[in-house]
């Protein structure tokens, strides 16, 4: 065992250890940022390990260096630019993009080895078999990850509508057919016939599209997390292909952790993984919910002026932001309104529901962007007991997260999801454009309550008007 071997080996062990610490740390608020850096350090270490090992044994040719540097430079630069430029609210699609590229990378590696076999294996049947199987897995999972992630990104960006036939049952047959095609090419590849390769790539790529396309935009974070888990599997398979322990461990860890995260996310949104994957978009249900809006019997609508008067007289105001606020990009206007209120001596805080919006942590990101002080953001468990002592609650483009059905109506699909008990406050204003339902597509009993008034309009516009009204009342944050 040469010195360089020992060195490489220790580096690998250390890298895995740090990666494990990193993944663990990322799941706790206090350690998350350091953990992310730790993981980055671990990855750099791993690269150093590979380079040192090669330098110590066969060396790295000049030619190889050129290609290495070229590839790294392009990847790094693009990655850095995208990571800097992208809007905070576009995180899920960004992660999807990155993830797809990771899948593509595994796919390409496996492809390369399939076409130009490495002289790794010792020719024994069992290792040849394992090598073939890992190439196949890497190609299969890699291309599903790639196309699936790209579709997810495109849908989240709104570039890709869901074709109607994709929501019908037909898609299941198409996907099953694609699955069968992939399986056939897989078995032919494993038995040593290389002609199946192209078929496998095309089949699994289409399968990735077919499975992801029908899924509704709001379920996408879960799908992306699942695809992320797949790309871990693809990495582990690539590890078998090139014979790297480190790759196998890291891939397996990420794959398994991704699976758990997917499950946790599903639970958080009160959805099951099965219904996310096979239930299709929630669009149709939403349509039902819309028609169901006729059921409202006791809606009080009020003007922005009235709302401004009530706010001005209040002592404690709680803002409940939701998806609509994000869509309207109204966070900065909101901040101006709350500045004005605070200047007038009103105590303002923000009630953050964990799944308000369309991605986990959406509201935290949004309000942080608008410079809302961290200590005014209150989590659900903290703020819920405070509602009875609150004068005014301003619900901005939120719907499901303030639906009392979740507590009261066991037949409701929301039942069991923890919600913000805004109805306990003295007065509730709900700002939204119309009576349409939220993500879950169901009626919101809150709107019917006596202490709730609707302020119809786009969140940004309403908040702008509110600012004007408040100024007329002599309140402004500017002085």
């Amino acid at each position, binding site marked *: 065992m040469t010195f360089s071997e020992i060195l490489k080996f220790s580096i690998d062990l250390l890298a895995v250890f740090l990666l494990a610490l*990193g*993944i663990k740390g*990322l*799941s706790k*608020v206090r350690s*998350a*940022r350091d953990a*992310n850096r730790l*993981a980055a350090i671990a*990855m750099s270490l791993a690269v150093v390990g590979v380079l040192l090992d090669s330098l110590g044994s066969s060396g790295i040719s000049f*030619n190889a260096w050129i*290609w*290495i540097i070229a*590839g*790294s430079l392009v*990847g790094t630069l693009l*990655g850095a630019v995208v*990571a800097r430029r*992208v809007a905070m609210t576009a*995180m899920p699609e*960004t*992660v999807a993009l*990155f*993830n797809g*590229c*990771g899948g*593509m990378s595994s796919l*390409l*590696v496996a492809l*390369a080895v399939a*076409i130009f076999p*490495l002289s790794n294996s010792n020719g*024994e049947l069992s*290792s040849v078999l394992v090598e073939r199987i890992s190439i196949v897995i890497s190609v299969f999972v890699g291309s599903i990850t790639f196309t699936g992630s790209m579709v997810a990104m495109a849908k989240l960006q709104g570039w890709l509508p869901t074709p109607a036939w994709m929501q019908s049952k037909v898609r299941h047959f198409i996907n099953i057919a694609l699955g069968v095609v992939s399986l056939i090419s897989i078995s032919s590849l494993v038995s040593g016939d290389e002609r199946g390769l192209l078929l496998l790539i095309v089949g699994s790529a289409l399968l990735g599209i077919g499975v992801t396309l029908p899924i509704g935009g709001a379920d996408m974070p879960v799908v992306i997390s699942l695809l*992320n888990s797949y*790309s*871990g599997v*693809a*990495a*582990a398979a690539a590890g078998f292909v*090139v014979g790297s322990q480190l*790759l*196998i*461990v*890291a*891939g*397996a*860890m990420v*794959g398994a952790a*991704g*699976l*758990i*995260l997917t499950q*946790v*996310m599903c639970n*958080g949104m009160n959805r099951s993984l099965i219904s996310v994957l096979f239930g299709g978009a929630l669009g149709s249900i939403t349509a039902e919910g819309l028609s169901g809006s006729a059921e409202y019997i006791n809606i009080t609508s009020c003007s922005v002026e009235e709302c401004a008067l009530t706010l001005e007289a209040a002592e404690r105001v709680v803002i409940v932001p939701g998806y609509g606020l994000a869509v309207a990009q109204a966070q900065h206007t909101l901040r101006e309104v709350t500045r004005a209120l605070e200047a007038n001596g009103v105590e303002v805080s923000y009630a953050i529901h964990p799944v308000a919006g369309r991605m*986990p942590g959406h509201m*935290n990101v949004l309000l942080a962007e608008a*410079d809302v*002080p961290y200590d005014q953001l209150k989590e659900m468990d903290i703020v819920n007991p405070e509602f009875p002592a609150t004068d005014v609650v301003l619900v901005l483009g939120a719907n499901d997260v303030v639906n009392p059905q979740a507590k009261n109506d066991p037949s409701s699909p929301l039942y069991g999801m923890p919600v913000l008990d805004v109805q306990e406050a003295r007065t509730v204003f709900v700002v939204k454009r119309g009576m349409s339902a939220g993500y879950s597509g169901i009626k919101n009993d809150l709107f019917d309550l006596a202490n709730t008034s609707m302020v119809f309009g786009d969140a940004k516009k309403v908040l702008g008007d509110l600012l004007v009204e408040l100024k007329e009342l002599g309140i402004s944050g500017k002085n």
Partner: protein
Amino acid sequence: MSFLSEAFWVLLLGSLLGLELIGKVPPTLHTPLMSGANAISGITMLAALTLIIKAGTNLPLLVLGAVSLGFALFNVVGGFLVTDRMLAMFSRKSSRK
């Protein structure tokens, strides 16, 4: 046999470890954890690197390796940076303002 036996051991243990590593994650961290884990899954860059180094003068292999490396590094670098950006937003800002 030896590489394989080793490989299966680390596969098993790595998977079990991954299943245990994250227990309860607060919803705020779902997105950053997802994106951080995603960056780590770009570890395939090591495979791409190995490929290039072993390619010798085989041009198609070099190109495939370099493209693969590019994709992987895009994933890794972008993933870590974007995670850091997100986590910076979550970190307590009470000092500011």
